[in-house]
């Protein structure tokens, strides 16, 4: 294969619609056309996924040949004359679009993807006035399981993006294409429910779906109902990655930090208290950091692996039940918050925990599943009642008619609202590791980590590693994001070839900034969100979790010490070798 691998150091000269352009070898026709300002329409193509070239909407003519080529999947070659615009090509593309639409429900106005749909955008771009092919009967009802993801396969355009992300990027293989011709479809093995297969609910399928075929189960109605009930004390927590993505929904620059506007919006929506998951992220660092030190001192199972990412936890339970002992027993920040908001918070605020509705705003669809796990009731109630994704929160703000861009900035409510720079970077790959090391290093060496910015674990490469010197003990740490990278790490542990001590694993590529519940985007946008989080870290007055005054108060007034008895009961959990199915089936 290497023989014909393109060499990007070589240049290729060609013309696009008569315009000369020079690009590196290995550039697709699609990319070359963008260089001269021609945006060839695409539907199945996605910048972060493999080429499939199945929708054929991007066809172009090369050197006048009768057969057209898919611009997304064909590299340019020396001297080729590409035509992207001609009446013939327009007619063919329009026919293809009409063929897709003739097999697609015409219910755009009530579709969850209305105005965010790539197919709809194509219809607008093509100026389509009518579909002259007879409309297929596409009236299958959506499939919902576990209140997490909805699959409305009547809307599926069979682009294969979801299959690619599930199989190749995440290595989960919960969905695939099956059958042929008119029966060709995206489905699960034997049409089983997602809960009965390996699906980890990461929602990456929903994140790449161009239409309304796979999406988060919208639970905003439950929150509106709770807010409307005068007997309910409705509290909300917001995950770190939400604040740098929410602005996308309102036309703000990508990666803009919207923390203050978001807090104001949540108050205006009617939440009684607006708290921050960053606060419990700091708590997580204290628990997890001490757990690591305890394992190091007492010879516990190493490497220890972080447990903040519920998609990752599902993955580990399904595929690596023999290695569950490596997982930190710490609950995720969402669930730590949930347990404390119905125990610690009522105690210091004189609120009846039975009346609290605990809502979280997450970048994540797997968090919806995590909150439902039956063991997540340490407070005596379900710790987190409703989980909304970033996209769902945006829908509430839009329904309320709030002009997000001009909202004033307000802080979170006190007690469970103060946080640090260490917590805010939880939202991007490497952030939990950096936050943990800022605290662990200082506990061990009695000196602050210098520099505090741990550049080696930043960025969205799939695997990152660095060796930290803890008072003479060299500790290797590893950071992985995306589940195929997680699989690589886990296989090395299973094979006994992993020499790391501490590993951070995030389910989604890029970490939570690329979560399945985030506003639609691609890896470039994820990087801008990451930059937003590191900027937020820099701007915060306190940048180490153990210095968060509200966390110090929590331990002083309520928990005692990290890993203490109360912590053990409220903030730590256990995992099942039976996989996620065990929880789902014995739970609800």
């Amino acid at each position: 294969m290497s023989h014909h691998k393109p060499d990007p150091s070589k240049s290729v000269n060609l013309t696009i619609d008569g315009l000369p352009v020079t690009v590196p070898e290995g550039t697709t026709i699609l990319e070359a056309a963008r260089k001269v300002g021609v945006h060839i329409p695409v539907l199945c193509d996605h910048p972060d996924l493999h080429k499939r070239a199945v929708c054929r909407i991007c066809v172009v003519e090369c050197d006048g040949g009768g057969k057209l080529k898919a611009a997304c999947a064909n590299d340019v070659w020396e001297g080729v004359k590409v035509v992207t615009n001609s009446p013939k090509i327009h007619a063919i593309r329009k026919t293809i679009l009409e063929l897709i639409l003739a097999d697609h429900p015409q219910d755009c106005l009530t579709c969850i993807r209305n105005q965010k749909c790539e197919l709809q955008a194509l219809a607008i771009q093509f100026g389509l006035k009518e579909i002259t092919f007879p409309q297929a009967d596409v009236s299958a009802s959506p499939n919902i399981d576990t209140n997490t993801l909805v699959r409305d396969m009547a809307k599926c355009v069979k682009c294969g993006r979801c299959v690619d992300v599930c199989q190749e990027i995440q290595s989960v293989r919960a969905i695939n294409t099956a059958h042929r011709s008119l029966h060709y479809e995206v489905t699960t093995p034997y049409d089983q429910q997602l809960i009965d297969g390996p699906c980890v609910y990461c929602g990456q399928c929903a994140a790449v779906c161009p239409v309304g075929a796979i999406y988060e189960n919208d639970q905003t109605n439950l929150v509106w109902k709770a807010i409307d009930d005068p007997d309910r004390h409705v509290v909300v927590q917001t995950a770190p990655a939400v604040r740098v993505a929410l602005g996308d929904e309102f036309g703000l620059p990508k990666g803009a930090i919207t923390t203050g506007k978001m807090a104001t919006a949540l108050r205006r929506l009617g939440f009684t208290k607006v708290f921050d998951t960053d606060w419990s992220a700091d708590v997580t660092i204290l628990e997890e950091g001490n757990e690591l030190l305890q394992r190091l001192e007492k010879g516990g199972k190493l490497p220890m692996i972080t447990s903040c990412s519920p998609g990752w936890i599902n993955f580990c339970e399904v595929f690596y039940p023999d290695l569950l002992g490596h997982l930190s027993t710490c609950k995720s920040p969402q669930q730590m918050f949930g347990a404390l908001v119905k125990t610690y918070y009522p105690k210091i605020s004189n609120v009846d925990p039975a009346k609290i509705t605990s809502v979280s705003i997450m970048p994540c669809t797997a968090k919806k599943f995590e909150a439902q796990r039956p063991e997540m009731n340490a407070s005596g109630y379900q710790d987190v009642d409703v989980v909304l994704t970033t996209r769902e929160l945006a829908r509430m703000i839009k329904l309320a008619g709030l002009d997000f861009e001009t909202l004033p900035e307000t802080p979170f409510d006190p007690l469970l609202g103060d946080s640090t720079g260490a917590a805010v970077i939880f939202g991007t790959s490497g952030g939990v590791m950096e936050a943990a090391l800022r605290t662990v290093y200082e506990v061990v060496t009695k000196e602050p980590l210098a520099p505090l910015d741990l550049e080696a674990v930043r960025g969205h490469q799939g695997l990152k590693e660095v060796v930290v010197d803890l008072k003479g003990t060299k500790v290797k740490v590893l950071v992985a994001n995306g589940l195929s990278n997680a699989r690589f790490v886990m296989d090395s542990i299973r094979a006994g070839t992993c020499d790391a001590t501490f590993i951070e694993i995030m389910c989604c590529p890029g970490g939570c900034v690329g979560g399945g519940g985030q506003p639609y985007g691609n890896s470039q946008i994820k990087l801008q969100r990451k930059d937003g989080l590191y900027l937020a870290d820099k701007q915060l007055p306190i940048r180490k979790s153990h210095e968060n005054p509200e966390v110090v108060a929590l331990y002083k007034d309520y928990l005692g010490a990290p890993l203490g008895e109360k912590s053990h009961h409220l903030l730590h959990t256990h995992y099942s070798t039976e996989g996620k199915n065990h929880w789902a089936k014995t739970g609800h």
Partner: protein
Amino acid sequence: MSKLMPLVSEGAGKINPLSVSDYIGVGGYQALKKAVGMTPEQVIGEVKKAKLLGRGGAAYPSGSKWEHLLHIPETPKYIVCNADEGEPGTFKDKLILGKLPLKLIEGITIAGFVFGAKAGYIYVRGEYRKIQKQLIQAIENAKKENYLGDNILGKGFNFDIHIISGAGAYVCGENSALLNSTEGKVGRPRIKPPHLAEVGLFLQPTLVNNVESLSSIPAIVLKGGDEFLKIGHPDSGGTKLICLSGHSAKTGVFEIPLGKVTIRDAIYDAEMGGGVKDGKKLKFFHLGGQSGPIGSPDQLDTVYSYTDLRKAGLGVGSGAIVVMDESVSIIEYLKGVTEFFIHESCGKCVPCREGNKQLYAILQKLSVPGAATENDLSNLRRLVTTMTAASFCGLGQTAAVALNTAWKLFKAEFEANVSKTAAAAA
């Protein structure tokens, strides 16, 4: 004088197909013995001189294909024989597989020697179950006689052939889908490039040739490329196995020299088709399988060669000649063709999956008086254009060939049922 020319099919039906000694008795394995004394370049030189065009349907020059593969340095290389003969009306590979399997095996073994391959695969149509068993036996017998296996003919060359059964999908006749299926994956075509010569079976450089092409190799090696070329047409040497079916008085496989026989000969010659059944008039003939063009009686005197047929807007394709008499409705016939492609589309690309479906719906309307409109006819035309130019693989690109050629010949039949009032209103 007979217009037939048994060359590839020489010996078929006359010997025990599984007997190596019988095969040697009709000249078998002389070519392999000659080839192992030649260099790979010399063998390929003869194939190029022979101007052998791929007999599966695409008519790609075999010599160029072989030369391309020879220059790829990566190893191991694989030899794959496409024996997934799935074109309706096509049963010529079956003749070789069933009656002369050792000739195919010899051809594959020569290819294996040329490319230094260790393994060859024959991907056999799933319905040819009995033939698959026979092929396995023929391979075993060849091994016993040292024509396969280790140290073949004492030349230090090791080569084995494996039989893979298809599972009934027409699209697996498409070479990249065939390789996916061989690897145990779903039989859907791959994105090209990379070409299969570069990234083929198990991602290795691979030769994929049709049964008839590979079975022509012994004759090319033995007679030499020049002699092989003389037998056929100056642009494409050798013979072609043609398959007559439909309303042909006689049906079966016949071997003819390329460029020396007309379509009329094929259909009417007493040694071949013997005319239209029951003395009826010929309405049209369908060449090369369901994916091939439809021809009219006006074109009967076209010479059967790749060049002449292409010039006439027709094509050799797989070698099928389906004869249809005057009683057949072209619309009903095309409905059958389109139904076939609806059944066999792999479904992954839009023009093929959705296009065939919409084509059928229009043909259905065209078969009912007054049901269709001018809009249906214009949609029919743009579907043909779109499917042909923009489909992912050869299946979709050729699914509307029959319809497109028939449109030119039988326009009146297409328009007969179009509602005039609806047309006026539109």
